[in-house]
């Protein structure tokens, strides 16, 4: 019954795609991040030293959580994250908090 993708998630995803994944995230209040995927989400980066980063209902940065926090992801289908190239990185975060 997940209908919405929260603004926070959408923002994080766009940051990840833009490659500026150095956010300092402090959540002090009630936080709800929900994602539902019916179908496929594919993220591919090709080239030397590239980074493919895929974040669904996740917080990436210096994460501090001081309130109630809920992160839910439902996937009916496939999520794919691929980096091709020397020294490349593929980072996939689903309902997770990852520190840089």
């Amino acid at each position: 019954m997940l209908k919405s993708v929260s603004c926070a998630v959408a923002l994080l995803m766009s940051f990840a795609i833009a490659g500026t994944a150095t956010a300092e995230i402090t959540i002090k209040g009630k936080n709800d991040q929900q994602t539902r995927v019916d179908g496929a989400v594919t993220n591919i980066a090709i080239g030397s030293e590239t980074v493919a980063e895929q974040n669904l209902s996740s917080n990436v940065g210096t994460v501090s959580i001081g309130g109630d926090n809920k992160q839910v992801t439902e996937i009916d289908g496939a999520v794919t994250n691929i980096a091709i190239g020397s020294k490349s990185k593929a980072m996939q975060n689903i309902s997770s908090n990852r520190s840089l």
Partner: protein
Amino acid sequence: MAVHVIDDCKRLVLIAAILGLPAQVCAEVQQRTSIRGAAANMAVMGGEAVSSMSSGAGLQQGNSTQSSYVNGVVINGAIGPGSHSSVSLSSAHKVRGSNIQLSSFKGVLVNGSALVAKASVQIASVAGDVSGSNTQIANVSGAVVNAAALAAKSTVQIASVGGNSKGTNLQIADVKGAVVNGAALVAKADTQLASVGKNVRGANKQVAVMRGAIVNLAGAAALADVRVASVGGSVNGANSQSAVVAGGIVNLAALAAKASVLVASRPGSVGGNAQSAFVGGGVVNIAAYGRSSTVEIGN
């Protein structure tokens, strides 16, 4: 909605920031992932492939529930020099307080890496220390295959704690199917089910039910280690380790290697502890070229 910030929590966040700990979770946290289908994460010719599902980094304090329900396929790999691949399902780095890691996995999980690589799979596990009242439960049916190559290290942890366990903690692993763990050449292969890597203090329980095969390999100059409902260090308090193994554990290793299998056992000192083990089926343990092979069941 009321903002819910605990004063102690603020202090802990500050302390963690001073100490340089990367992440702080200090409240009611729920992380849930449900997958019906496939999740793939790969770095081809590259350095690192990291896949986290309902998992956290750093120190988690307070009440947290991390759950994952997978019905399908999870593929993670890194192929290339110096590569590193890891998959975390409902897992944490270090926890304090009242935390639950829960995972129900049905299907196939393949984790890779090659050359000077490291491959790790964590399912409902905590990599470091645990204190407070914590529970790790994993129900795995299907296959978990973990590999690595050349000077590599491969680790599979299911409902396990890598560090010390202090308080009232419970680890339960119910595994039906095959867990194959690899490594090659100057490598190390570790498989842990409902186990604690270091010392245990308090009222802790490790329970493992296994129906099927664990094959744990290694290679030249390698170490192969399987632990089922076991503790790596000393045990102090009212602890118990119980294991039912209906099926086979095959543990190998080769050349200058060491192979060990612990089932409901702890090699360190004991204060108030019970071990029970039922093995219906075979445990085969092999090593080569004069190096040690150890099997301990209910010790």
